[in-house]
């Protein structure tokens, strides 16, 4: 398995059967279940889903970064290929080993650039910290590296910004700093948890373009957690759609948008304003089209339905849907779907 020849063919990250449950006062909550995906080096996988669908929990589990207050039960495997070619299971690593990986080989960009920088440390000090930690550089060399990183993320007057505090920077600038921070040690896997959600649309586009450029230059693998399908269409190679803690559909990005197979994905795409226009908007009069919505709401994680989690909201529900959770089955075109309908089409 460690043979160098096969290294290129191995996925950078392969997650198998990840499940995460939290013990809460109201009972055990299965936050993520049966999540499997794999990411080839240099690829971008978008993990899509609404709030509470388990996408952030999935990314935090890979980093071993659950809130210290939460009692998380994590099961499954996450095989990560390190720089030196060794393949390790992230979920089985001791904390000390994970700490060596974090910020070094696996980095993370968070959603809120306003609070993810320490207000009392200068931007330069914060970037330098990571480099000093993982590369053992001295203060001067680390600050030089920090400056280099600020230039890389296209921050003007980098030398001057180095000595500034986060409150002196705009939201877009702060997110650039966060990216510089994450990229400082040249990670091979970057997890971006809704990196543009808190930014306005023009800044979003700039940040996404920047991340795309950096990815191309460094060849890093990008796990992109988002609920923004427009962003997904533009930047992802592969998409995995999550609903109620499970992947319901996974496909290459073109296939997913051209021909969604799972009713939830179909519903999500129908909700997009652009899509409503294409469909001719059957719900409203001429001129203005009403946006579609998926009826109902996500079932409580404390009392999940016995069958398909999306069943209660699905217009194409079958009797069998309420019996048992459909499995995630492979379909032609390198895609997978967790829906009986799509399974039938294949076997028919």
């Amino acid at each position, binding site marked *: 398995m460690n043979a160098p020849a096969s290294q290129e063919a191995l996925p950078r990250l392969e997650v198998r059967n990840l499940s995460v449950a939290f013990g809460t006062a109201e009972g055990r909550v299965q936050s993520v279940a049966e999540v499997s995906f794999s990411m080839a080096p240099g690829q971008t996988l978008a993990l899509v889903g609404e709030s509470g669908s388990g996408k952030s929990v999935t990314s935090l589990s890979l*980093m071993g*970064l659950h809130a*210290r*207050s939460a009692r998380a039960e994590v099961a499954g495997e996450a095989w990560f290929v390190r720089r030196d070619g060794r393949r390790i299971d992230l979920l089985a690593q001791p904390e000390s080993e*994970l*700490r*060596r*990986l*974090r*910020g*070094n080989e696996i*980095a*993370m960009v*968070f*959603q*809120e650039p306003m*609070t*993810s*920088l*320490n*207000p*009392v*440390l200068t931007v330069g000090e914060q970037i330098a*910290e*990571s480099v000093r*930690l*993982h590369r053992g550089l001295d203060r001067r060399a680390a600050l030089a590296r920090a400056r280099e990183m600020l230039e890389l993320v296209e921050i003007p007057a980098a030398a001057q910004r180095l000595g500034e505090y986060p409150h002196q920077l705009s939201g877009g600038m702060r997110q650039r700093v*966060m990216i510089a*921070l994450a990229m400082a040690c040249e990670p091979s896997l970057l997890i971006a948890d809704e990196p543009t959600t808190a930014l306005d649309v023009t800044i979003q586009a700039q940040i996404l373009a920047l991340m795309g450029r950096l990815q191309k230059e460094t060849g890093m693998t990008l796990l992109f957690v988002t609920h923004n399908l427009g962003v997904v269409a533009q930047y992802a190679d592969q998409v995995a759609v999550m609903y109620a803690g499970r992947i319901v559909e996974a496909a290459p990005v073109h296939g997913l948008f051209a021909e969604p197979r799972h009713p939830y994905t179909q519903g999500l795409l129908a909700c997009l304003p652009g899509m409503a226009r294409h469909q001719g908007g059957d719900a409203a009069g001429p001129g203005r089209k009403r946006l579609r919505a998926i009826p109902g709401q996500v079932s409580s994680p404390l009392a999940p339905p016995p069958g398909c989690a999306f069943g209660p909201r699905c217009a194409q529900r079958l009797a069998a849907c309420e019996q048992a959770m459909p499995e995630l089955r492979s379909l032609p075109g390198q895609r997978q779907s967790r829906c009986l309908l799509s399974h039938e089409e294949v076997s028919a």
Partner: protein
Amino acid sequence: MNPTWKILRRLFARRVVLAATLLLLAVVVVAVLVPWLSSADPSAMDISARLHKPSGEHWAGTDELGRDVALRIVHGARYSLLIGGVTSVGAVLLGTLLGLLAGYFRRLDAPLMRLVDAMMSFPDILLGIALVAILGPSLWNVVLALVIVYTPRVARVVRAATLVLRELLFVDAARALGVRTPWILWRHILPNLASPILVQLTFIFAYAILCEAGLSFLGVGVPPEIPTWGTMIAGSLDYADRALWVILYPGLAIVLTALSLQILGDGVRDLLDPKLRKAA
């Protein structure tokens, strides 16, 4: 403009804060320099000059043993400031450590904070009396007792602030960079605690001076031969009906110093509170 200068200007925008600071500076300077300014012994008795009124020779009069009250106040400032300073620094160090641990590590929270609650359920002066009674009356035992009295107060404040800080994303971001927990506490949490700690420092300085005076007045504080402001009042109280100055001037010294510290503490708090900053 120089940032330090800017901060000072904001702090002293209120004249009363400036006045308090100048007064404190004067007290500190006099207390530090007095051994070089005058070789007179504050404990030198002159029985022929008992309870003299304030005059050109004795600015604040003399006490029942003919000792110069003004000279004793100045020397007393050395002890009172020493007690207040060491107590506040000690209580802040210990309280910050406890508060940080209790706030960051949830397992330690309940045991540490119940201990703190138990300590805080005693009135300051009562706890002080009890501790000095156990430790025995000496200058350093009084300081130790006062540190124990005021540590819980700091621990509470620091714990509350830490509880807020630990949930902020930059702590998670630091963990995501592979930073070790002790370094997160030292480098990421502690600097953010600077303002509440600084405010506590000035308040406890004032409380400690007051409490020491109270303990000495009750006879369980610093031994009477050491001239602190508290021991001066306690020693001369019996003569106050005939010679008010023997307690008036040390009392004024206590009131003005403690008040100035409180005002300065308020000023620092207002300066560091972002909610009040915009109004200023």
